[in-house]
């Protein structure tokens, strides 16, 4: 009887309870939205860094190395010689060592020179390859390019299309290279920055820059030691003008065979003080970056906590107000024979119904909003705000998997 009365009282007077419901929904939606968004953002960042257990690059800011290599933003620090790649391979402490060379773009999408082994690379043994060609095939011949799913979607390039790379990292600046690429494959979406990449053979990068420099000035050599606007724009140049000789690389992706080997690699890199390169654990760098961004996680959690507190207060106030407005009704029920406990139960049932409906609506709005927002952000930003509920596989490893002292 009581439940029915409570239900009818809400159902048949929707306008009367609309304000309360809206208030409840808004109070619930906001924290849910914020929690989902921050969780999604951190999840996206952590996920982006997962395929890069160890990075080697030119000496300089480790943040810049991570931001450039992992997130495809900012400029590279400089280059390191290919012999560093070979040294890592010969160390026997890594099961995968892949060079990466940056410096060119097509309509703002970064052209990344690399080796085909990247397509077989499985950062996590329980999952398939990180970058797999969904359509077409990997690059084989000079001038072949494999593009990320976002690159394909936004440039309209398809398998078989050709495009000309531009020297520099941003669209519109720099002169066109002679190098023309042909799309041979499109990557399956990875939900990260590499969706906006263009992968080509590192040989093509070397070749393009060899033509440009004409073998007279080793711009790569300059870039290697200094950083500045002009040099940062420079792509790795060939060490020698002759074909078939290895050029410089911007970064090296290293997958250590194990934790001990990772530590050894780090120690060796730290010992070789004279070297022009640095070896970093990007997950660690990311943690440092989080704390550098003003303890932003704590800030968001604090803000969300405050919002939840405000939501609870608003809810209590609204319920108190709703209860007050029903006093005459409760007096009537008492006069009709209802006991105090029955009246209290009616009030509680009604408030609980309102609370449940409002909270459910708010949760849905907040959750749906965060899914929509994540989609919108992913469409524009290089760093995907991967929504936790859209993750294909298990959670990413916590960003503290590697726990040596800071490598910088």
């Amino acid at each position, binding site marked *: *009887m009581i439940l029915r*009365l409570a239900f*009818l*009282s809400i*159902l*048949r*007077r929707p306008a009367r309870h609309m304000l309360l419901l809206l208030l409840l929904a808004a109070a619930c939606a906001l924290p849910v939205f914020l929690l989902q968004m921050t969780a999604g953002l951190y999840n996206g960042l952590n996920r982006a860094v997962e395929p890069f257990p160890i990075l080697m690059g030119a000496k300089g800011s480790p943040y810049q190395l991570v931001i450039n290599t992992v997130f495809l933003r900012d400029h590279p620090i400089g280059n390191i010689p290919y012999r560093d790649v070979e040294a890592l391979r010969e160390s026997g402490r890594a099961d995968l060592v892949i060079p990466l060379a940056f410096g060119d773009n097509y309509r703002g999408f970064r052209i990344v020179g690399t080796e085909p082994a990247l397509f077989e690379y499985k950062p996590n043994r329980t999952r398939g390859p990180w970058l797999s060609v969904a359509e077409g095939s990997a690059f084989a011949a000079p001038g072949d390019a494999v593009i990320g799913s976002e690159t394909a979607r936004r440039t309209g390039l398809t398998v078989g299309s050709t495009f000309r790379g531009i020297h520099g990292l941003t669209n519109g600046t720099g002169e066109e290279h002679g190098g023309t690429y042909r799309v041979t494959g499109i990557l399956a979406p990875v939900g990260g920055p590499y969706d906006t990449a263009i992968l080509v053979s590192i040989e093509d990068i070397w070749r393009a820059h060899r033509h440009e420099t004409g073998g007279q000035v080793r711009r790569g050599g300059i870039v290697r030691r200094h950083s500045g606007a002009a040099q940062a724009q420079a792509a790795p140049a060939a060490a020698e003008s002759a074909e078939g000789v290895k050029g410089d690389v911007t970064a090296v992706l290293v997958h250590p065979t194990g934790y001990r080997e990772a530590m050894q690699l780090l120690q060796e890199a730290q010992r070789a003080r004279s070297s022009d390169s640095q070896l970093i654990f990007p997950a660690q760098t990311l943690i440092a970056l989080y704390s550098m961004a003003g303890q932003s996680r704590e800030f968001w959690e604090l803000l969300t906590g405050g919002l939840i507190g405000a939501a609870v207060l608003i809810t209590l106030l609204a319920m108190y107000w709703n209860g007050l407005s029903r006093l005459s*009704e409760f007096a*009537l*029920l*008492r*006069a*009709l*024979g*209802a*006991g*105090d*406990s*029955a009246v209290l139960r009616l009030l509680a049932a009604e408030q609980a119904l309102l609370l449940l409906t409002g909270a459910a609506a708010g949760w849905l709005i907040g959750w749906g909003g965060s899914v929509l927002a994540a989609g919108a952000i992913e469409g524009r930003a290089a760093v995907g705000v991967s929504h936790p509920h859209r993750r294909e596989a298990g959670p990413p490893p916590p960003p503290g998997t590697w726990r040596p002292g800071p490598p910088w």
Partner: protein
Amino acid sequence: MIYGEHIQCDFPDGEGHHLRALAISALTVPDHGCCAVIGPSGSGKSTLFRCLSGLLRPTAGRILIDGTDITALGSGELAKWRAGRVGFIFQQALLLPYLTVMENILLAADIAGLDRSQKRREAEAWLARLGMEGFGRRMPGRLSGGEKQRAGFIRAILTAPQLLLADEPTASLDGDNSRLLMGCLLDYQRESGCTLLCATHDPAVQALFPAQIRLMKGALAS
């Protein structure tokens, strides 16, 4: 049989003092009594009804109804005693706006836990008898003042109360509706043999009752 002695009812007047709303040394209403309760506004008629129905516990004194000392009952026992025993009719019908007329009429019977389908049939019969056939499905907002008051009357009597308290039931009705309602009330009292107390200002209504209780500033006046 209603028997009261030394009934006092005080309300805080907001200035730290007490306002004595009721001070009755002795009150007797016989079984099947049919009484008008008269007195100027503020003389304590409503307060007396609230005390007799157990809604309000008097500050002092005893009230015995059919042998039960209701001033000695706990609030839970009081609610149980009240449900189904006391019928209330107010100046305004006070129908819940989110229930249909029928749901409103069945409310007191529902609270008392009476058989719903049987009470529904009785309610239909009463609606028909009062010229409101088929009104059960309507919402109260679409009823006239007289119709609402008649619905309130059916709600009060559907539990077959032994004590029927009508607190100025005709105060907001016109002459025709007032006569119709009073006719129902008195007919019902005769048919059921319940005790009926009816507070009223209206001399025409007072004249319908064989006995009168006259209140003056909370006390019985002769």
